């Protein structure tokens, strides 16, 4: 009883198809459900303009609209068993086309949100900054590999630019030994980094 009360809601949709085109499509669809290849080809070609009209009312871009049209054709194929010949064909077709058009629009809007998020993202450093960082890392690694005495000599004499005597006092080396250690350290770095420092 409850079911029949609500079946009344579908009364309009369940009116027999009066439109000749709709009747033709419905008849072809019945044949398609029985496995008729020719009827299927005719049906899809005949209702392609209708699918395009429904999709293009929502999707403006021609290429995106054609993608949605093809999605509609694929969905129609997957759902062809759900068509009820007692009902008109066009609302069934339009509902599928509208669904695929909405899906396409959603996908496009997600895609454009992702793209604008990437555009707005702060720059993670220019290539020049990146290569400078790389070279600095190489230099640090090369310095770390030097013997302790050479590293200390390099830091005191070259980086901190202390006078030789003061550097010698801090390091506990003689002035001569400090000079040799500094010289060897620079030579070792030059050899390891391929003389790039010298070219700059």
């Amino acid at each position, binding site marked *: 009883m*409850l*079911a029949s009360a*609500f*079946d009344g*809601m*579908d009364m309009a*949709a369940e009116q027999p198809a009066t439109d000749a085109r709709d009747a033709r499509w419905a008849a072809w669809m019945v044949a*398609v*459900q*029985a*496995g*008729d*290849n*020719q009827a*299927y*080809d005719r049906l*899809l*070609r005949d209702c*392609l303009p209708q699918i395009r009209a429904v999709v293009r009312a929502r999707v403006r871009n021609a290429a995106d609209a*054609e993608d949605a*049209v*093809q*999605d509609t*054709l*694929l*969905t129609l*194929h*997957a*759902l*062809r*068993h*759900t*068509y*009820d*010949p007692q*009902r008109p064909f066009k*609302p*069934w077709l339009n*509902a*599928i086309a509208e*669904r695929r058009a909405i899906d396409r629009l959603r996908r496009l809007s997600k895609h454009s949100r992702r793209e604008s998020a990437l555009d707005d993202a702060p720059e993670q450093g220019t290539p020049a900054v990146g290569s400078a960082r790389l070279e600095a890392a190489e230099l640090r690694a090369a310095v770390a590999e030097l013997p302790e005495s050479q590293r200390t000599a390099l830091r005191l004499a070259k980086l901190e630019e202390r006078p030789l005597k003061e550097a010698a006092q801090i390091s506990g080396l003689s002035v001569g030994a400090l000079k040799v250690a500094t010289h060897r350290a620079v030579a070792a770095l030059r050899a390891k980094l391929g003389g790039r420092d010298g070219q700059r």
Partner: protein
Amino acid sequence: MDSDELIARLARDAKPVRRLAPPWQGALAWLALAALFMAGVVAVAGLRHDLGARLGLMTEQLNLAFAAATAVLAALGAFHLARPDGDARWAWAPVAPALGWLAGMGAGCLGEIWRGGLAMGTSFECARFILGFGVPLTLSMLWMVRHAALTRPVEVAALAGLAASALAAVGLALVHHLDAAAMVLVWHGGSVVLSVWVARRWGARALAAMGPKLPSV
């Protein structure tokens, strides 16, 4: 590939298909399955000892009738909406009996307050029953309406969750002794709301896993 070529390929693959049964038949089949399931539960758990007395109460009859109507209309709605051209108004079909059911539970609470205070406590057994009964019934309905995956998965899944949990609440009233109206409202009503929310949230994914896939051409 252009659309003409796609049409030619699809037409070549036009194998015969079995037409879907009308929505009322689908709903009836599911309700029969649910009744069988419920009969099994009653056979194991046994009917509540005071069932006769409870069913004699007008309020109890109304509540059960509303819950059952909610389940039946939600099931019918799900089977109608699962078709691409199903009338969208079917989504509203179970709203009126669901509100009646809710009002009945609310009125019970007011009556308890009037008689001298609400009895409140926990009844995880109710939630366990409704969810334990509702989940397999929801899944069985989703299987029956799996073609909705490509058109209206969220609405159909929510209706399936409502139909299954409302029916579970009817089943629960037959086996479980719980008279405190506030507890019925919280534990029965809450479990139904939770079931619908879960079905709405994850049902579309379940449908997508069970449902037809677009052919690769």
